[in-house]
């Protein structure tokens, strides 16, 4: 019984990580219907960038990752803004193909450049023991401090993003542009700029997700596609158009995988995929679908 609670707990915390991966994708898809197949690779890129930044700050292992993350944030925003404004905006339109092919090409470029720079060996961001610390709960249950922090950050992200969308002028602009781009132009919005802002913010989320992921586990240049699929599944299960939905979707996926791993390590991820596909058949709009 206790081990089941432990599995559930681990699953929920894992789900927090998946929700973290998914937030950026939910934002971009929500605003401009862009599917970024390089999303997972950007998370890995952020992890490696965090790794290098942490080393170069020369600080103690306990502080370095956080400083690295802070340094990474403005770089990530600029990169996201620039990428959207100068490359991806041109690929948007009725046809999904150009954006898919371009982001697919980006994925290949990122994976191979990382491989050149860092070799195929997995790396991890040193955090001075933070990644192994744990908090003991009653009855012999324990939760890792880092996974717990990741979960809390995921919740904070969901709350923050939903607040951004619902209560701020920029959020209004995002929703307006996603509803009717041409009518928004009539109001004086420059959709190229608004889209670029959205991607910039999404990349902030990616930077946070990547650095935390790099602290939690070792990353290799080719890990990207797997993360893309998890993020995608979390968004679909939760329902498009709601960041809380994405959070819940991530948790459902995490718990599903944890249960699957319990039965057989080889089937964990498989089980997650199956539950996702089942959701797709019986409830395609997701658990909390908000969008039209």
């Amino acid at each position, binding site marked *: 019984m206790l081990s089941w609670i432990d599995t559930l707990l681990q699953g929920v915390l894992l789900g927090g990580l998946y929700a973290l991966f998914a937030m950026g994708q939910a934002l971009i898809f929500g605003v401009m219907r862009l599917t970024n197949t390089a999303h997972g690779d950007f998370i890995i890129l952020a992890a490696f960038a965090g790794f290098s930044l942490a080393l170069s700050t020369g600080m103690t292992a306990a502080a370095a990752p956080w400083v690295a993350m802070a340094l990474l944030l403005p770089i990530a925003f600029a990169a996201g803004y620039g990428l959207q404004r100068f490359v991806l905006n041109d690929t948007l339109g009725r046809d999904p193909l150009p954006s898919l092919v371009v982001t697919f090409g980006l994925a290949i470029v990122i994976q191979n450049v990382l491989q050149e720079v860092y070799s195929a060996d997995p790396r991890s961001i040193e955090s001075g023991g933070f990644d192994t610390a744990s908090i003991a709960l009653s009855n012999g249950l324990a939760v890792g401090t880092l996974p717990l922090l990741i979960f809390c950050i995921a919740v904070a992200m969901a709350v923050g993003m939903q607040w951004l969308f619902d209560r701020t002028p920029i959020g209004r602009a995002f929703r307006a542009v996603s509803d009717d781009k041409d009518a928004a132009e009539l109001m004086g919005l420059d959709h190229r700029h608004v889209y670029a802002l959205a991607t910039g913010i999404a990349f902030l989320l990616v930077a946070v997700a990547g650095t935390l992921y790099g602290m939690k586990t070792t990353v290799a240049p080719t890990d990207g596609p797997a993360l893309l*699929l998890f993020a995608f599944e979390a968004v679909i299960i939760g329902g498009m158009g709601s960041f809380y939905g994405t959070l819940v979707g991530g948790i459902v996926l995490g718990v599903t995988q944890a249960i699957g791993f319990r039965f057989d390590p080889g089937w964990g991820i498989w089980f997650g995929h199956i539950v996702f596909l089942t959701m797709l058949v019986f409830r395609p709009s997701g658990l909390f679908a908000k969008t039209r």
Partner: protein
Amino acid sequence: MTSAPQVSYSISRATHASRAGGAVAIALILLLATFPFWADSGWMRDFDEMACYLMFAMMWNLLAGYGGMVSIGQQAYLGLGGYGLLVMGNLWGFNPFFAVPVAALFAMLVALPVSRVAFRLQGGYFAIGTWVIAEVFRLSFANWSEVGGGSGTSLIALQGIPKATRQAATFWFSLVGAVASVALVYWFLRSRQGLAMLAIRDSEVASESQGVNVRATKLGVYLVAAFGAGLAGALYFLGNLRISPDAAFSVNWTAFTIFIVMIGGIGTIEGPIVGVVLFYLLNRFFSDYGTWYLVGLGLLAIVVTIKFPRGLWGYVAHRYDLHFFPVQRRLLLHEPPTK
């Protein structure tokens, strides 16, 4: 009101280029057919591999360029074709050559229930959803010890056959497969179903109002594409003799195919052919550069998609109005006889 003048018309499809091209193509195919008698076995193996890419690319192009369904998961059927061959050959003792088309059929049959799930999604999410499905197959076969699990196994059913015979037979099968896939796509696009599909690609709503059964047509295209992918997979592993889940269901199949089709020219029949030739040449000369070669391919795909969306062939065809595989129908008006 004067009565409408009598106008007689006919619908023409052939172009000068297509007639000339047809002759050249037949000559080329006949030449290729003689390969096993004199060509190097390395050349034949290269051709086998490129023929598989051509089949896979033709099908992906049919699905995405004509059908409007962009899939990143077609490797699912390629892998199913390969593993179908393995199961029939190794476990059930079938003649592997006979098993090839059956494996393709098997892939097509699996596509039927899969489509019920995949078609829930549209656009970009359809693309990633199909990738998830391919992953499900990969993980399933990786956990099936009977076929070698994660590390795969060899196709032992061909062990009794002398090498030269095996290579020749595989080569001819690949040649037939490649020609058949091109012919199949060409025939399909010239048919009523093909016209319906082009209409759907342009506007689903409009074509539905004209009586086109959108669902059935899209399903038909998806099934045909699955068959072709399965055929490519079965033929590839027939020649490769060794199969593993990572090789059979690798997303790299689709990645390279996207490159081939986009650079060759999407939405044309000549495009993937041009793309495969280019891909082969690039491979020959640059694959030694390893990761930088792949970076180059990725960048090329990005640039071509943004700057030359019609691809190499599409640009030429558009500029010079050149069509070797004419699919468009042209209305020829005949002058009414003078009274």
